[in-house]
């Protein structure tokens, strides 16, 4: 028992053991396959290309179905991404396919910021997966993985070289997603031109350090075909959902006055090769690369940003718990500090307000006093005036009485005088 434990603990001590009979663990791959078939698979493709270059048509042709598409206008003010999820089934294998299309890519006059929207979208998907991973109660096996597994970049068939926008965008995306460049609408390039065009594109990508997705060559079963395909990149594709009668079969093709371009004819275009490479042979590898390379890179950058390291300044391994604790303390300390600051500010403000109010009160008081004084002064003045008026009235009434009396007296005397006169006159007689 103990020797087996020791053997399991150290790889160096692992001794190859030969079996004397059939144990049965060679069915492990089958178990794995059964389990994943029951679960269903998930695949997300991002299609980047100019409006009208044939992204939706190619997806329809690849998956042999009709996804609901509608024509976009050329006058979108900025690049948007539209994601649609479908459930497909072939034999007993279920596939949850998400197709993300760019809307309005390459239409604006100023395309400086076009790549940013795509990068943001990819980062958002990585972020939500990271959040799920860091949750306390997580359900990764149920999680709908929305990370982009493959990015088909549609190159316009100019016949000369890549466009400047293509180069700029691919450089920004090559460390975030598996890029598979395809030449769209390839039925406008003749064979010789196509050969030159492919060489030019690949040399431009190499000279600018853009890392596109290389089909894996480490597995012997597929290495031969993958190496061959790596030399044919980028695939020149033609998409079509219409069928034309060739011989006695109906095939997917495009009918021109000068001939018929058959989509599945390897002589005409590389569609079959793309389908094989993307779906039949390397789909699982694309998913794995996304998870182990691109996602891990994103995660590392994000966590380093947040301040987590694997080793502290003394080069000793630091556990996540210690970092958590340290971060938490820092955060709480910062909170307290902020609280103190706010409290002080509050106190200061209150003091200021108080002094202001006191000032105002004093002013008002002063004014009130002043007004009162003025009021009493006025009152005094009025009183004085009233008195003088009264005095005058008194004097006037006295005078009036006096004059009346005088008048009455004079009247009486007049009357007496008259009486006397009358008597006198009457006496004479």
């Amino acid at each position, binding site marked *: 028992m103990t020797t087996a434990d020791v053997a399991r603990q150290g790889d160096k001590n692992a001794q190859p053991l030969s079996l004397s009979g059939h144990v049965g663990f060679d069915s492990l791959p089958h178990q794995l396959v059964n389990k994943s078939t029951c679960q269903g698979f998930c695949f997300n493709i991002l299609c980047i290309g100019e409006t009208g270059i044939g992204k939706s048509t190619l997806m329809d042709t690849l998956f042999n179905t009709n996804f609901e598409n509608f024509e976009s206008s050329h006058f979108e003010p900025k690049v948007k991404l539209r994601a649609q999820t479908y459930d497909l089934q072939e034999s007993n294998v279920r596939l949850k396919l998400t197709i993300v299309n760019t809307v309005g890519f390459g239409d604006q*006059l*100023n395309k400086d910021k076009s790549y940013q929207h795509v990068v943001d979208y990819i980062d958002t998907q990585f972020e939500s997966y990271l959040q799920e991973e860091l949750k306390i109660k997580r359900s990764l096996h149920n999680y709908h993985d929305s990370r982009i597994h493959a990015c088909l970049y549609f190159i316009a068939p100019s016949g*000369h070289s890549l466009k*400047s926008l293509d180069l700029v965008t691919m450089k920004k995306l090559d460390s975030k997603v598996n890029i598979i460049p395809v030449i769209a609408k390839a*039925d406008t390039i003749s064979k010789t031109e196509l050969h030159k065009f492919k060489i030019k594109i690949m040399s431009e990508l190499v000279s600018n350090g853009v890392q596109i997705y290389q089909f894996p060559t480490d597995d012997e079963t597929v290495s031969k075909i993958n190496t061959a395909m790596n030399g044919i990149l980028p695939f020149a594709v033609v998409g079509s959902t219409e069928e034309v009668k060739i011989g006695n079969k109906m095939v997917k093709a495009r*009918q021109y006055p000068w001939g018929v371009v058959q989509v599945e004819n390897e*002589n005409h275009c590389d569609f079959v090769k793309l389908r094989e490479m993307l779906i039949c042979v390397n789909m699982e590898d694309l998913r794995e690369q996304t998870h182990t390379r691109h996602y891990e890179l994103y995660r590392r950058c994000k966590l380093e940003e947040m301040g987590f390291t694997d080793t502290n300044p003394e080069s000793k391994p630091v556990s996540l718990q210690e970092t958590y604790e340290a971060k938490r303390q820092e955060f709480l300390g910062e909170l307290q500090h902020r609280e103190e600051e706010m409290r002080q500010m509050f106190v200061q403000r209150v003091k200021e307000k108080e002094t202001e109010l006191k000032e105002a009160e004093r002013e008002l008081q002063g004014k009130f006093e002043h007004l009162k004084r003025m009021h009493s002064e006025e009152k005094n003045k009025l009183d004085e005036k009233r008195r003088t008026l009264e005095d005058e009235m008194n004097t006037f009434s006295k005078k009036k009485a006096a004059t009346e009396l005088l008048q009455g007296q004079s009247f009486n005397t007049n009357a007496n005088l008259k009486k006397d006169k009358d008597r006198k006159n009457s006496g004479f007689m």
Partner: protein
Amino acid sequence: MTSNSRMKSRSFRSEDGAEEKEYVGFATLPNQVHRKSVKKGFDFTLMVAGESGLGKSTLVNSLFLTDLHKDRKLLNAEERIGQTVAITKHTLDIEEKGVKLKLTIIDTPGFGDAVNNTDCWRPITDYIEQQFEQYFRDESGLNRKNIQDHRVHCCLYFIPPFGHGLRPVDVEFMKALQDKVNVVPLIAKADCLTPNEIRKLKDRVREEIDKFGIKVYQFPDCDSDEDEEARQKDRELKESTPFAVIGSNMVVEARGQKVRGRMYPWGIVEVENQAHCDFVKLRTMLIRTHMHDLKDITCDSHYENYRALCIHTMTSKMNTDKRVESPILPTQNVETEKIIKKKDEELRRMQEMLQKMQQQMQHEQDL
């Protein structure tokens, strides 16, 4: 019909007053014009504009059956990120049946290739205006014997066939140039579109040209006395704009003949086959029938507009110059006026404050 012609010839005779077949002879005027123009030779300036990779040079080569751009250097994508538009000129002297043509092709490499294409047509409009200005100056000069006409007579604008219609850069470019030059929009690399798709795209482009109010070159209407066949052709021509063209530098063997074309695994596209593309229509229109009309419109409307605008700005500038001189005196008044205004403001403010204080006192008295 015949009685009319008889009447006409009779009127000649009656004008002359003579009974014989004497005629004045000005019916030979067209021949004289023909002779003189052949002697003088013609010139034509054609501009091609559009994103790189749309087949402009190939089309020019196919149109004039030459190879203009033998050793040109195409830029890499990296170099094109911040590229500005350059203007290059190629002049050819070609002769056909005694008629000499001095053809100038103006190419605009770099248009629409940079990542930021705002105002990328500015060098092009500047160039066209420069040519107008040059001609204007020459025309108003003293010695007008040997004026060289470098004005741009026609601009072929290439619309990529990969989209659903016009793009913002197409609309902006055509709008910037519609009053300066005859704009002829073309759908480039038409061998990536099936006949249905070509029809849809043409309708779409025509709709959008109407919607945005872009003034492209309109074919002049047929004369009313042309016969039905010519009128039918004219109608067809007008309905198939914008032309969907294909160009080729190579000669291939098709149906037993050597023709200009493109060889594909699924068939051979012939440039001059009317069922394959509108190249023949374009060539007919551009060279065989409407070349002179393009020149006329350039001289009569675009150049005249430019000239009127130029004169107008010159005279209005002179007027504003005059106006600039007089305010030297009123500026002093303006200064004092400003001070007065400021003081007025202050006064008003103080009055308001006084009023407020009075109101407050009143309010407290009432209390």
